[in-house]
């Protein structure tokens, strides 16, 4: 497994993420989900990728997949401004706490989610939350969509520069349509 970009997230253990270099391959994994959830973190509000915000890629991705959405921190306001009403708004650790329970009804009350994607969290904070899910939610797969290796995720992107990330997200959205 590759090293995470931020060394604070270095894995001390044996069970690390699988880095998916190819957007199409990640798309195939995501498509298998029956009840996918996309969790928006606050950093996706400000990250600009050549004139388009990361949050907009998240919205496109959720729409293409028909995924349920969860706004954490203060992202709800931005999503509303983008014309999207999130299916739920929680603190990040609250949604993670719910996801731990296999019998939870999920944000759409249709059953717990089987694949959960994260976009726009601090990497250290996000990696800790992913650790919780790795240890306590064996019933679901986690995927990170930010350009950093997240060792505690089930599937992670590689560390990459902004231009490559933009390309990756565009290809991922395309593969889901």
């Amino acid at each position, binding site marked *: 497994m590759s090293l995470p970009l931020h060394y604070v997230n270095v894995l001390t*253990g*044996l069970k690390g993420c699988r880095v998916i270099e190819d957007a199409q391959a990640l798309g195939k994994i995501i498509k298998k989900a029956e009840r996918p959830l996309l969790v928006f*973190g606050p950093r996706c509000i400000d990250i600009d990728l050549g004139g388009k915000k990361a949050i907009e890629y998240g919205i496109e991705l959720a729409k293409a997949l028909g995924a349920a959405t969860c706004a954490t921190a203060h992202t*709800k306001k931005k999503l509303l401004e983008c014309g999207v009403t999130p299916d*739920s708004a929680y603190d990040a650790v609250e949604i993670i*706490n719910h996801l731990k329970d296999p019998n939870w009804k999920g944000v759409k009350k249709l059953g717990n989610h089987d694949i959960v994607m994260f976009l726009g969290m601090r990497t*250290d*904070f996000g990696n800790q939350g992913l*650790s*919780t899910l790795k240890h306590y939610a064996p019933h679901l797969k986690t995927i990170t969509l930010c350009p950093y290796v997240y060792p505690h995720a089930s599937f992670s992107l590689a560390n990459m520069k902004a231009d490559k990330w933009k390309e990756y997200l565009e290809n991922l959205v395309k593969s889901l349509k």
Partner: protein
Amino acid sequence: MSKGKVKSEEINKTIRAEDNWEPVGPTPMPEISDLRRWDMRLLNTYKPFYAPFCDLCCFCTYGKCDLTGEKKGACGINISGQQGRWALMFSLMGCSAHGAHARHLVDYLIDKYGEDYKIDLGGQVAVEAPHMRTVMGLKPETLGDLRKGIEFVERGIIHGVSATHMGQEGSSLDFESKSLHIGMLDHVVMEVADIAQTIGFKFPTSVAETPLSGLGWGAVDKSKPVVTCVGHNAAVATVMIDQLMKMGIYDQVEVTGICCTAHDNIRYSDKAKIIGPLSKQLFFLRTGIADLVLTDEQCVRCDIPELAKATGSALIATSDKISYGLDDVTHKEVDEIVRMITQEGKQVLIRDVDKAGEVAAKVLPIVAKGRKKEIATKEKATELAKECKQCGLCDRVCPNLLNISDATADVRDGKFEKMADLFAKCVGCGKCEQECPKSIPIITIMQAATAWDTFNIRVGRGPIQDVEIRKVGAPIVLGTIPGIIAIVGCSNYPEEAEEVVEIAEEFAKRKYIVVLSGCAAMAAGMKKDAEGKTIYERFKPDFDAGGVLNVGSCVANAHITGAAMKVANIFAKLPLRANYEVIADYILNRVGAVGLAWGAYSQKAFCIGTGCNRMGIPVVLGPHSAKYRRLYLSRKEEDDWTVMDGRKKELINTEEPSPEHLSIVVESKERAIITMAKLCIRKNDTAQGRQLKLNHYISLYKQHMGTLPDDLQNFVRNDKDIPIVYKKEVAEYLKNVGWKPKPLLTLPTLIGTYESNIPIDAVVK
């Protein structure tokens, strides 16, 4: 809990049970499991949430053991047990740091004044030690009594440490119960430490409007001899200040400090100055402005001898907790030590408070002579940055995930805006420099990027006055003062420290009571308005609606939690004495207090927060605190929120998650503000109080999230709770979500919802 005859007699003797200030309650000097049933009741609603930092256990020679999945370690422990063990260890480390600090102060002061030296906190503080009274059942009267508090805590710590040994405790819940116990003890020793130094060093007490003191690295007159005290124990500094006065040179020198010693120095002498929080330790010491560095204990960098050597600052270490491998010269004569420092350039350890203070005062004017203190100029910084190749290694090791390489590259090009912004967010570890293959001194470059401003901070005032509690007790419990916001802890902030000011100001404007301490109190003073005033100059210093208070250093945190206890005692007339369960239950259900540790980094901060949790005070933490690995979260509407109506003696399912969590991490300032407003909601709120609290919650939620809160239905009990200004909007929302009125309570309590020796009548007064 039943105790043996000998032990009971020992306790009765220690707390002078025959004194009749209050009847002795059910748990005098509780042992580690005496309040276990209260803990389990809390943990049933607020379950531990674990985010393991490591998948492995590396504690013993069986290991390393992989604890992922269903796997257990060679000793049988699982991942939750291991996280619980970490939680207990953090609490023990934090409590021990405060406990050893308190022990040092009390022993020193007993040596100086005798154990019969009286506790007198002034005419406005009659309930002098709410924690000692509530936890131990002892009303301390002398320094000797304070020592009993320390001995009691030391006993608890040994028991706690023993449980962390492999082959002992294994249940995560029992680890948590023990951790909560140690957290409770932490507040006892913090209280002991601050009372001891307040009476021993004659800090201000029974005064709300304490003076203002200089704050910021720009506040230091570097043309004078400068001593910088680093740490948390002001004993040596007080002696040094006395000696400087005796020598007639106090006005000619600068006594400065970083972290909590600085707080206590300005309580001793408002001519002393605070440089800033611990995140500025490396930055400031690197400037070489300090002619003499005086270290004591806690939150002191491990590499200060190297730093001092590099800048030519003299160094005296004064605590046996941080000896740095230096020569212990405690046994030598003062003049000989002065000679060793000034002529041989030796860095020394002096473990005698009076001797260290005297040496420091005598050394300071000598070592300052002829020293040049040159702050890096912009030209110099540009020169230093020239080597930067933007390899990005600095970015990879930054614990705050900052983009250092871009800022450094800009400096290389003569632009300082990004570096100034970076400095505002920098947590001051220096890891970027050690990773840099070109050895660029990034922290030095920051000297040229920062503004060298001067700010004002209000001197820490110590305990909240009883008269203030009398005034605000009813409004707090009824909810018409919407809450007590305690902003505490270290400076490991996710963004600029200015966020602390913004949060404090938001709540002060809304007429919450805002109480600050430690590094957070410093950060709050480091922003001025258009008129050049800091938050301490803009808001009244009273423990009252809209007040902004600085109680002092870390150990003064006990006065914040003590104020919540005093509300139960002074306003509600509940006896404190050995009555922890009743008092904690009262606070949980009726006192809308919440803590914010936005930049918590230390085990002490973890332990303080855990102590708050046991007494029913929720704590909001910044994102770095996810690395503490443990939170206490409820599942909102999915949990059972049944309480006992104390007057009717009926179990009632309130369906109201209040307070919703006991310990939660949030990622952004905006979310922190919303969460804190919500966590001030209590089941005891009157309709008027609930309206006010919901008014703030709705208004803040709309401001930052754009809609009504999507959990509003959980907190509206009936129509009377709806804030008038949002009446129509909320009524429509409630109709849409199928809201139904909730049962009303006359006296909410958890007593009676679990097996306990406490009769329900104990909470009814």
